């Protein structure tokens, strides 16, 4: 494990905490989406089993960080999440686009109104984060032949970019009716570029640049969270008829993905 600590926790323990938080955010929005469609396909329960397993494995690892078998369980849970996310991506694509009337001829329509195409990939991303965390807790310096620090920065850039794409398509559906809906396309995109540059051309860019951009991205996540809550209340009845508007309004916790992914990047910048 790295020697640097923040509030007595080391980098991979912080990453463990972030896995738990990010999985919770993901599952809360998945619950809304799958409940809305009535769980008509039994496979729609899978992310909750896989995500639940990942959370339990991470909690175990957090409590017993120096015990080898907890890291092994976390690796298994990480791989399970990766596979579940990829299968979910296929399902969202097949049932959300290909099998719909009009299919690919109505691609843009179904990308906007069908199952969110990139949402399941978020589970894969968290799964990879679990794999990296397990390696880090086992004191192994590499994963898939890459340094853990490099892998985490790449993961931060990829996950933020996916979140930007998903937010972009859904905010486009919402006709960018509020200027703040452009925010995910601004600073987070710059953070992606900065993280990518730090990985590809280490040296010229001082780490303070990605650090500032990641802090701002984290803040933007909370701005989005507040604005999504406001979005609920623009619906008829607002939160007074909470369940209905939770299902029909903007995804309640999705903006916090930006904060969570940015936090992963910040752990790398400051603690690794």
């Amino acid at each position, binding site marked *: 494990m790295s020697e640097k600590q*923040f*509030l007595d926790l080391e980098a991979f323990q912080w990453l463990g905490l972030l896995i738990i938080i990010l999985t919770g955010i993901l599952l809360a929005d998945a619950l809304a989406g799958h409940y809305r469609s009535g769980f008509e396909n039994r496979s729609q329960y899978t992310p909750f089993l896989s995500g639940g397993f990942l959370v339990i494995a991470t909690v175990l690892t957090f409590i017993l960080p120096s015990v080898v078998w907890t890291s092994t369980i976390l690796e298994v849970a990480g791989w399970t999440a990766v596979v579940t996310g990829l299968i979910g991506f296929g399902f969202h694509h097949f049932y959300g686009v290909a099998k719909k009337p009009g299919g690919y001829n109505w691609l843009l329509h179904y990308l906007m109104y069908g199952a969110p195409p990139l949402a399941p990939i978020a589970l894969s991303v968290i799964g990879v984060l679990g794999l990296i965390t397990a390696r880090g807790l086992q004191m192994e310096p590499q994963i898939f032949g890459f340094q853990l620090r490099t892998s985490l920065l790449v993961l931060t850039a990829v996950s933020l970019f996916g979140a930007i794409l998903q937010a972009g398509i859904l905010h486009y559906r919402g006709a960018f009716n509020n200027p703040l809906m452009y925010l995910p396309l601004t600073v987070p995109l710059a953070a992606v570029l900065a993280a990518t540059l730090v990985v590809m051309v280490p040296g010229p860019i001082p780490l303070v640049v990605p650090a500032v951009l990641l*802090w701002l991205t*984290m*803040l933007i*996540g*909370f*701005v989005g*969270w*507040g*604005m999504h*809550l*406001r979005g609920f*209340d*623009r619906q008829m009845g*607002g*939160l*007074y008829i*909470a369940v209905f508007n939770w299902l029909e309004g903007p995804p309640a916790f999705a903006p916090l993905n930006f*904060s969570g992914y940015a936090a992963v990047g910040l752990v790398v910048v400051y603690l690794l």
Partner: protein
Amino acid sequence: MGGTVMTVGRAVKLFKLGAPLHPILVHFTIALFSASLFFDAAGFLLVITSLSVTGWWTLAAACVLTIFTVITGVISRMNLPIAEGEARSFLRSHMALGLIFFGILLILTIWRAAIWRAGGDVSWPYLMAAIGVAVVMSIQGYLGGELVYRYGAEVEGDFTRLNGNKSIETTAPALYGKMSPPPTDESGGVG
């Protein structure tokens, strides 16, 4: 609705566990954060370490308490029938700003924690940022205060007249639309 409470037994009977907790908790957030800013500024300007340490712990407590402030705020909203109009515009802004405030408070707390762990003192940039957060908190407090005291949000019996002054007509707040009056209980209060 009775007269003056004269006995402890009667006072106990009037105790309600269902009272909204949000108006209680917001004051913890406001007081703890304001105290933190005061102690940090005083510790920085007077170079007194114990004041700076107090500034950190009060900020940490503010951040933790604010989680419950946010949760109870959402619960309050879920229990509040409110028609579209002026009051609901205040409410929407209050809801959005609440989570944004929590975000900047969290980031400020992480910053302050790093200073505390490094054993250093706060700096001018930190104090300026904290003052900025205090401004956001004040706006948020104003919006919340208006919701309660101008529009009567979550105030039980907000149409209730003073005892013995039946002639006093209160101006109905804009909490409910004219076309959809809220149900009234026996005392004429709003349900």
